[in-house]
């Protein structure tokens, strides 16, 4: 039961924090594509490790790690933490704190 709660909590937390970022996950900017092309041509096997799929996966992982960052929940208004913060980022994170605490209680 505890595991189910944790999975549910993480999924909910992840989805809620990522709603404004989901579009960014699946669309690559011109700079992203330029970087991929530069990297993939510079070594053998570049095509396998640097391509659009890995870039999308990287964006997804970026969002995932963002959503499990404790500083996002506790200090998201700190100027050092999120220079590009918005009101959404500051206030929406507080209700999700409960999920983070649940997660921590599960671990310890």
């Amino acid at each position, binding site marked *: 039961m505890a595991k189910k709660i944790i999975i549910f909590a993480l999924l909910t937390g992840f989805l809620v924090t990522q709603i404004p970022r989901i579009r960014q996950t699946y669309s690559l900017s011109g700079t992203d594509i330029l970087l991929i092309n*530069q*990297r993939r041509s*510079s*070594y053998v*096997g*570049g095509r396998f*490790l640097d391509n659009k799929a890995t870039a999308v996966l990287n964006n997804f*992982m*970026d969002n995932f*790690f*963002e959503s*499990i*960052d*404790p*500083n*996002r929940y*506790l*200090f998201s208004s*700190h100027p*050092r*933490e999120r220079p590009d913060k918005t009101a959404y980022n500051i206030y929406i994170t507080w209700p999700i704190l409960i999920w983070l605490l649940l997660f921590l209680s599960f*671990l*310890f």
Partner: protein
Amino acid sequence: MAFIILVVSLLVRLYQLPSVPVGFYVDEAAQGYNAYLLLTTGRDEHNHVLPLYLQSFGTYPPALFAYFATVPIKLFGLSVFSVRLTSAVIGSVTVLVFAILCQFVFSRRSAFLLGGLLLAINPTHVLFSRGIHEPTLGLLIFLLGVTFLYRRCWTRGLLLLSLSTYAYQPQRLIVYPLILGLVFLFRKKPILPLILFGLTQLPNLLLGPSARLSALSWWPTPHPIREFLSQYLAYFSPRNLFWLPDPDLQRSLPQLSVFYSWLIIPFVWGIPKIKKHAFIILLLLVSPLAAALTRDPFSTSRASPFLIPLNLIILAGLLKKPKLGAVLLIISTVWLYRSLFVLLPLERYQAWNYGYETIFASLKSTPLPIVVDTSSGPVYILYLFFTKAQALPANVSFRSLVWSQDIYKKQIIVATPLSVSPNQAQEHFLQPLMSVYSPGHQIVLTAYSTDPVAKCHSFPDSAKIEACSRQ
């Protein structure tokens, strides 16, 4: 098994050692050049006899690494390889000591091999063992001290912890609370070892520089508790540990964080298993203290002792499926290779002062005055290192460019494209003598020859007299 671990860690650390990281950072040069001077003259670059701290660029790093580096410099001469070899060997020994600690903690044979492999290919530790010297030495001595203390060898443990504070300054802020915690944890008062520790710390307390901490600290601030907690918590964030590289480009590998991202799974598995290891929990809580007191959002070098408890937690998780863990770790070397040998030279050449060796070698015999722009940092030390000179020659100066004067003298200007753009070079009649290109074929540094006559004649008659009088 110890032999296998040592060979793997040496292989990872020695392969292409002089050329990766590409370039040679000023801090490396300062340690290497001072080691060379200590070996040949017994004094550092500021003429201090056998110093405890190097004055260097005013940051006063401990001189212990420089003393260690005198051995390979004596054997192989002053070179990039000999300076980095010191760190590579120290890093490899660290891996071996960590493997021994793992066996003590988990009392399993597989813990030795898996723990050793875990640190041997850890991205942060591999980079540190190649080019970031003081934290590498500090970590080895700290780890030795911790290993002895884990076995309740108080005297050796405390003396080694004391020595670690002479290897890397931030260790001071970790060692003192750690010892307090251990005394409380083991419920023992080892009076004699503590007295010895106190005595060996006297030079540190009386002579040790504190200016660096004052310069880097966020103190004073109106919200000290918030500042400290936000910084402290950053060292427990999976985002910083498993995903984002250190924000300092010189202290991280491209696209790799402190650990490989997939290691978050054994990390989560390992957390419940360390509940009974109060020693690891204490290390975990104490290790980020020094880094949390400074302004940088996340500093792997200042929190380098943090690698010990975190790797132990990850190992505790990996031991759940040791064979799969070993296979995945071996596969992870592909990402290490990609980041260290492909992306680092391509994307981080500027952070490692790439190009100065080539340009100084070319300009070494020129009789003209040379002005080297210092917007990239105190690069004078690179000149001293690569030319093995006792002092800077009279015709070479290291400073910011003064446009109102420098272009009216016949001399050579060495600058990055950010300091002198192609348009500025054209406008001021600067003739490119040579350029150094990055591995990605971008201009890193250019040596220009000034043409004061052409510059003077480019003015209208009224302004010409004043401009030319500056020559």
